[in-house]
């Protein structure tokens, strides 16, 4: 197990390095420096600023400075737009928010997705099944950027039950709509995967044997069918992390929750390259970490996989 984890971490290192170098080169090749503005600065001032941010060094040295800064101290450098803030501060402010409602959405999506999928599979071709399949198809064509306005329209403008946006320290009223918007499409995918895999398991021979033994439906489900049926769901949890984070961009923007997605879009609109890079790299690292966790989990549940 340990060897497996180490091997995966070994592959993760080049990935992160590629990501860092690639985003750095991208930023470097951007037309116009971060300090060229409509009102040009005096050349001496510009030279001073560029020296401060190491922009005068040769490219390879700049990359080296950046990479060592990121790797050794998690230092993503200063923001190019807000002179009194570092990238770390901006990330540190937004990340807890995203993490909070992201985790809740994740749990909600996994729980309800599995429940929906299991209900559909156990009542195949009944109205419950059709309802569940209908919900999951509907959720697939209604992505979060469509869900969000509809939710606001219904719950804020028509019913007046929930605040239309804001974070307010994560009070529950402010959490409901972001969580629904973020978890729905993901829940739908889980439900679909769960349904088809459980159906396949339920038609296998050992379930027939279990039924012939006279086990109740509940015993069959929880003792025999559920564990193998969960495997495809678990392997889907890997890409989820990316889906959730990407979705959080929309949620942040629409509900102004102040999460990391909002910081990303703001920096994209302001050409604040260092913040964009920092967030991209952070998400890349987290993706790799999450994939690793999912792989370990998968191997732990499925005895057929040798690490």
């Amino acid at each position, binding site marked *: 197990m340990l060897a497996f984890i180490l091997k995966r971490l070994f592959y993760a290192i080049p990935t992160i390095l590629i990501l860092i170098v690639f985003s750095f080169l991208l930023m470097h090749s951007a037309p116009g420096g971060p300090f060229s503005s409509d009102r040009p600065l005096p050349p001496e001032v510009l030279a001073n600023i560029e020296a401060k941010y190491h922009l005068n060094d040769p490219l390879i040295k700049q990359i080296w400075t950046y990479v060592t800064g990121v790797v050794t101290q998690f230092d993503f450098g200063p923001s190019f737009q807000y002179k009194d803030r570092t990238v770390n501060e901006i990330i540190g402010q937004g990340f807890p928010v995203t993490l909070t409602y992201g985790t809740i959405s994740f749990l909600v999506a996994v729980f309800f997705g599995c429940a929906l999928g299991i209900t559909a599979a156990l009542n195949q071709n009944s109205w419950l099944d059709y309802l569940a399949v209908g919900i999951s198809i509907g959720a697939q064509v209604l992505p979060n950027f469509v869900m969000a306005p509809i939710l606001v*329209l219904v719950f804020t403008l028509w019913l007046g039950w929930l605040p239309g946006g804001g974070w307010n320290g994560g009070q529950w009223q402010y959490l409901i709509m972001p969580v629904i918007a973020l978890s729905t499409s993901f829940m739908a995918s889980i439900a679909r995967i769960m349904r088809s895999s459980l159906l396949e398991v339920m038609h296998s021979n050992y379930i027939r044997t279990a039924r012939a033994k006279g086990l109740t439906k509940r015993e069959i489900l929880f003792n025999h069918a559920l564990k193998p049926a969960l495997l495809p769901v678990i392997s889907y949890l890997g890409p989820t992390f990316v889906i959730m984070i990407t979705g959080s961009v929309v949620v942040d923007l629409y509900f102004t929750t102040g999460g990391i997605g909002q910081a*990303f879009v703001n920096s*994209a609109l302001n050409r604040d390259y260092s913040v964009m890079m920092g967030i991209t790299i952070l998400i*890349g690292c987290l993706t790799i970490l999450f994939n690793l966790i999912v792989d370990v989990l998968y191997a732990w549940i499925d005895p057929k996989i040798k690490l």
Partner: protein
Amino acid sequence: MTNVSMTNSTDTQGDVANTKGRSLWQDARRRFLQNRAAVVSLIVLMGVCLIALFGPLLAAWDNETVDWNVLGDIATLGAPSLSNGHYFGTDELGRDLYSRVVQGTQVSLMVGIVGSTIAVILGTLYGATAGYVGGKTDNIMMRIVDILMSIPYMFVLILLLVVFGRSMWLLFVGVGMISWLEMSRIVRGQTLTLKSKEYVDAALSIGVKHHVIVLRHIIPNLLGVIVIYATLLVPQMILTESFISFLGLGVQEPNTSWGALISEGASTLQYGTYWQLLFPLAFFVITLFCFFFIGDGLRDALDPKDR
């Protein structure tokens, strides 16, 4: 194509061949036509394409002209009406929504098609090469895919768009570059099984060159998988583009796309101009539905597992 020649040859042979041979594609077409949802979706999708192509001919206003008569009071005067030529109403700036939706449809469909073409070509060539060559090359090539897969592409794409300036072609290519990885994995898996077939050995034994074998024997046999995957890829491309346009980082005015229109419509919802969300949303949802159903239909029709 094969179907036609097949039926012709059996007709000329007359009673010599009483049992008509059925090709894979003939079988697939029969099964596809039996799938009612898929056929209806195909017809509806053709309708959407016709609107995108010939819609401008019906428009009373173009997509840039501001109708000064309605500008003061969009919420009442800008509503959909046949009499003043705004079939879908106007947007917040008094521009004809019908023209804008038609234009957005063109852009969104184009993104879907161009993006998935790029993804399919790249992914197929890469995957087929890796699978066919095998051994160490295959190992390295797929390891590269593994590494690239854990990069958060949505963020890198936005980074690209910000650094190089927003252009439609960059968006098209960028969206396509995102998803060739998955494609290459699928194609590689299929190629591995195809490689050991007798006709490849036969081709090798008469001295056919390797690249000819890949192009003439491997890829045509992969066509089923490619077609299924491509149809499922198009809605994903449209979703990605809409997502980026929703954030305000996609196509630029006066051009528009479904995502941009939905974003505009969503932001003006509280003024009661519901049609500004409704029409683009309807096009978006209907088209995605169609692609999903067609993809499902094709999978059922072409998947050899079901035979």
